[in-house]
C-alpha cells in the first residue's frame, strides 16, 4: 500500500495574514482630521466663553444698579416692623423692656411677632 505523500509541488503556504482592504485614511490623517475638528470647536468655545463673560458682566451691572433701590425698600420695611415691635413691647411691658442683645447693632429678628389684630388696607 503506497504511503500518503505531500502533493506534487508541496503544500500551499498557510494563510495567516488577513487580507483586509487598506483603510481609506492613514492613522495620521485621521488624527489630524480629529485635531482640526477639535480646534474648530475650541475656536467657538473661546468666543462663546468670552461672550458669556461679557453677558455675565452686563447682568451683574444691571443688578448693581438696582441693589440700592431694592435694599432701601427692604430697609424701610425692616425699620417699620422693628418700630412696630418696639411699640408693642412698650405697650405690653411698659418701661421694663430689656434689650435682647448687648450691642447697638440692628439684629434682624429671628422670630417675627405678628400683631393679634391685623389691619389690612
Amino acid at each position, binding site marked *: 500500500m503506497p504511503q500518503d505523500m505531500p502533493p506534487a509541488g508541496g503544500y500551499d503556504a498557510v494563510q495567516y495574514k488577513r487580507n483586509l482592504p487598506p483603510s481609506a485614511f492613514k492613522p495620521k490623517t485621521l488624527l489630524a482630521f480629529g485635531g482640526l475638528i477639535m480646534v474648530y470647536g475650541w475656536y467657538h468655545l473661546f468666543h462663546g466663553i468670552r461672550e458669556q463673560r461679557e453677558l455675565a458682566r452686563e447682568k451683574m451691572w*444691571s443688578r448693581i*444698579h438696582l441693589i*440700592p433701590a431694592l435694599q432701601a425698600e427692604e430697609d*424701610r420695611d425692616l*425699620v417699620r416692623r422693628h*418700630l412696630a415691635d418696639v411699640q408693642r413691647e412698650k405697650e405690653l411691658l411698659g418701661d421694663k423692656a430689656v434689650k435682647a442683645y448687648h450691642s447697638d447693632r440692628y439684629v434682624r429678628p429671628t422670630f417675627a411677632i405678628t400683631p393679634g389684630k391685623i389691619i389690612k388696607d
Partner: protein
Amino acid sequence: MASRIPQFNQQVLYDTTPLPDSIPKVKELGASSAPLMSAAYFIGARCRDYNDDFMQCKNENPGKGEFECLKEGRRVTRCARSVIADINKSCLEEFRKHWTCLEDNNQQLWQCRPAEWKLNKCVFENLGLKKEIPDQPPNVTPVHLRKQMIYAHWPIPRSAEPFVPPTQTGDNNKAPAAASSSS
C-alpha cells in the same frame, strides 16, 4: 409627611403697622423684576450719585444702616421711581415690549436685543439716558451692541440695528474711571 400643613410666611408675617409720622413717607417702586431689570441701566445712569450715597452710608454704619440711611434710601427710591415714571411716560410701548420679552425669556438680556435697542433709542432721545456697561474692555464691541448673540435662541433679524448713542466714542474711556472712583 404628606399631611404636614404648609406654612407660608407671607400670610403669617402680616404687620401693617405704618411707619411713625416722624419718618417721611415715600412711595415704593412698585415694579416687578422684569421692568426693573429692563430699566436698570437707566436707573444706574440717572441715580448713580444717590445710589453711591446710599451704599456709602450703609457701609459707614454697619449694623445701624437700616436706621441711619433712611433719608438716602428715600432719595434712591424717589430717583428710581422717577426714572420708571419717565420711561412710562415717553417710551411706554418700547419699554413694555422689552420687559415682556425679558419675562418670556427667563430674563436673559441677550434674547431681547432688538427690543432693547428700540428702548435704548427712545430713552436716549427722550430722557437723555444711555445704557453703558462700566469697565468695558477696549477694542471690543460692547456686548449689548453686537449684532450676533451666540446664546440667543433666534438670530437677530437683519432689519434690527443696534442703537449707538452719538457720543459713544468719547465716553468709552470715561466710564471705567467713573466706576473705579465711585466704588
